[in-house]
């Protein structure tokens, strides 16, 4: 069972939510961010090039040009390896746990798995983020010493930051699974 829907993130960019239901108690939600547009890359590259060429024009030092190439390449690589997240997914397996993973544009993947006995609940929360107040989905972790308290909060979909309507959809189907087990 697959669904694909388009939503927007808090900055108004389109993101797509893909709900995949593997079984009645195992669902996967994938939020994909839009690809980096070619125009943006071109603009940045052109800016660096123009700047380096101006410096070259005044200094007549070719090292500036080669440095510009290296800087552009390295920063692009760093960007796709550490910054640009291609898609984030949330795998909820009833009675086993919740797995969050984010795939970077370079293919790097970071995954965290949280066992069910540590999880208290999944909720939608409000937080101040930069100069905005946004809604976000988060997993509440239990405090092992006192079961009613919340020891910490793990925010979900940190880089795609979907808007409330998308979060509500994910939240509802997560609760369906959590309430069953």
């Amino acid at each position, binding site marked *: 069972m697959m669904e694909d829907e388009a939503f927007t993130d808090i900055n108004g960019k389109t993101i797509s939510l893909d709900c995949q239901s*593997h*079984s*009645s*108690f*195992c669902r*996967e939600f994938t939020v994909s961010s839009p690809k980096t547009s070619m125009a943006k890359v071109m603009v940045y590259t052109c800016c660096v090039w123009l700047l380096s060429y101006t410096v070259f024009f005044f200094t007549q030092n070719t090292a500036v040009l080669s440095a510009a190439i290296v800087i552009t390449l390295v920063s692009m690589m760093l960007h796709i390896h550490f910054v640009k997240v291609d898609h984030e997914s949330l*795998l909820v*397996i*009833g*009675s*086993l746990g919740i*797995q969050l*993973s984010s795939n970077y544009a370079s293919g790097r993947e970071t*995954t*965290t*798995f949280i*066992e*069910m*006995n*540590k999880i208290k609940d999944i909720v939608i929360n409000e937080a101040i983020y930069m100069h905005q107040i946004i809604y976000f989905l988060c997993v509440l972790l239990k405090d*092992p*010493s006192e079961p009613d308290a919340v020891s910490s909060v793990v925010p979900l979909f940190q880089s795609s930051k979907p808007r409330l309507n998308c979060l509500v959809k994910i939240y509802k189907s997560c609760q369906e699974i959590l309430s069953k*087990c």
Partner: protein
Amino acid sequence: MVLKIFFPQCCNRADSGLLVGRWISGHESAVVLAVIHYPFIPGQVKQYVQQMQTRSGVELSVLGSWSLPKEGQEGMESFLRDLSTIFPQKRWLQISRQMGKTGFICNVLNRDHDGESAQKVKRKKKHEDVKGDEGEEDKEEEEEEEKVIFIHYEQRKVMMSQLHPIENGLQDPKTDSPSELRQMFQTVAQSQPLFFMDKYDDGPLKSTHWQSEGREASIIVELLKQASVPLCLLVTWLLSLWTWICNIRIFSLYPFCFLSSKLSTCVQLSYRTEHMRTLSSPRPAAGHTQFMRKANIFVSFLVDVALGMLLISWLYRDNHISMLANTLVPAADHVAKQLEELLQWLMGAPAGLKMNRALDQVLGRFFLYHIHLWISYIHLMSPFIEGIFWYGGLSACLGLTFALSLLSDMVALLTFHIYCFYVYGARLYCLKIYGLSSLWRLFRGKKWNVLRQRVDSCSYDLDQLFIGTLLFTILLFLLPTTALYYLVFTLLRLVVVLFQGVLHLSVDFINSFPLFAVGLRVCRFYRLAEGVKFRVLCDEPGTALHLLMEINPLKVSTVVQTYRTPTYSCYPKDSWAALVKKLFVGELIYPWRHKTTKTD
């Protein structure tokens, strides 16, 4: 409730037989460890399981049956079901694969532990009936009453990995039992004896589980183990000799004691002794943490010595030592000359500032005299410097860290004059600051209450106020001169401290960097697990959910943080703000820390 079955990947294609494993209590999950094949005698299986249970300390049991249909093996179904009566269990799993399908099918037979046989039969019969009539419906019914997840794991990796954060064996019984995954990891790791049975063994039982590829390397390991015992004894003996020397009474006298705590070479020496003592203890490491600690110390010691050897080979080639010595003496001379010029400049009108002439002259002369003393000291020393270097360089064979600590000590000794100037300047400045602050309080009709650690109000006499005012004025007008001297010498001192700090930092880095753990993370990433990650395998409709469990390796930064060898880290723990405040008030700053604080 969902039933979770941890299933080893190596048993995917095993022949039909019995599943051996463990039920994890309270979590509705079963860990399958091995499959015992047909034919077997039930009594022997029971005996074998019993034997393994005592050897590994895991509550092993027969979980159920496994069937992989092949041509010519039909009609096993009823036989497998009858097996459940032989091995009495609360639950009996019947896992089977069908031809041409990737998914497994699992039937669970529940029964009460002390239930009557009639009931059992009835229930079983019902199962049989339904199955005979319409197989499809049966499955659905099964699914409704009990959902099953298969979690495939790689037995070897799970067995060898260490789940972080490490929990030491001692657990307070108050806290709830360890989490499901941790129990699963423990079960697999502890049932190592089960995996020793080889597929070539000619025992009465045949089984499938993870098998090690071979044991060739283990001969070398055994030999090394044998050899390490006398080596350890030798090192221990040497160490005891060394501690005996260190404990001779003369070293505990005041000057030695003080010196050895301040010289970084001595600190490094005691530190290495500690390391060797840890390494040479004949007992095997108890627990993962201690083992990693030993291994880290050993590897970093080896690397240290190798680097030291490199340094030696460079130093003693091409007469580098005398070259160094010949440049050092003129350099020290040059520094002294520069200082002298600086003092001359300060005694005039530095940067156009108008100072208190008398105080300025007194201070300047005082410092000049010191420099004079210093220069004569350097000249006295200069013939021996090469020798000192030559013998000092030998210490590098104990490791690069020793050479660096020695260098730091030498810098400290060679810049002793700067230190002296700094102390004089700081003390004078400090005195003035304190004087001014308490006199300022006197003006406001307050005083510092020592007993209560607070500022109280207080009424002063007229003559007290008069004297106070006089003193305050004098101190205030003399402050700029002192402050200037203090500023200049503090800057010089800071340069030296910075250099020593860099040296200490590098020594500390070599001492504490967990090289072994990082190597393990790079080469055998599954050994240090942060957790697990799951991937959904095929999800054919109708079969149970299949997940693949992989090991999520620890992040490198976490590895370094967890396994860093504790040292006396030499870095001002106090923040930059505290340092600036100290400088402002005129308290002395040191590159070393007072020994009471040890970081773990």
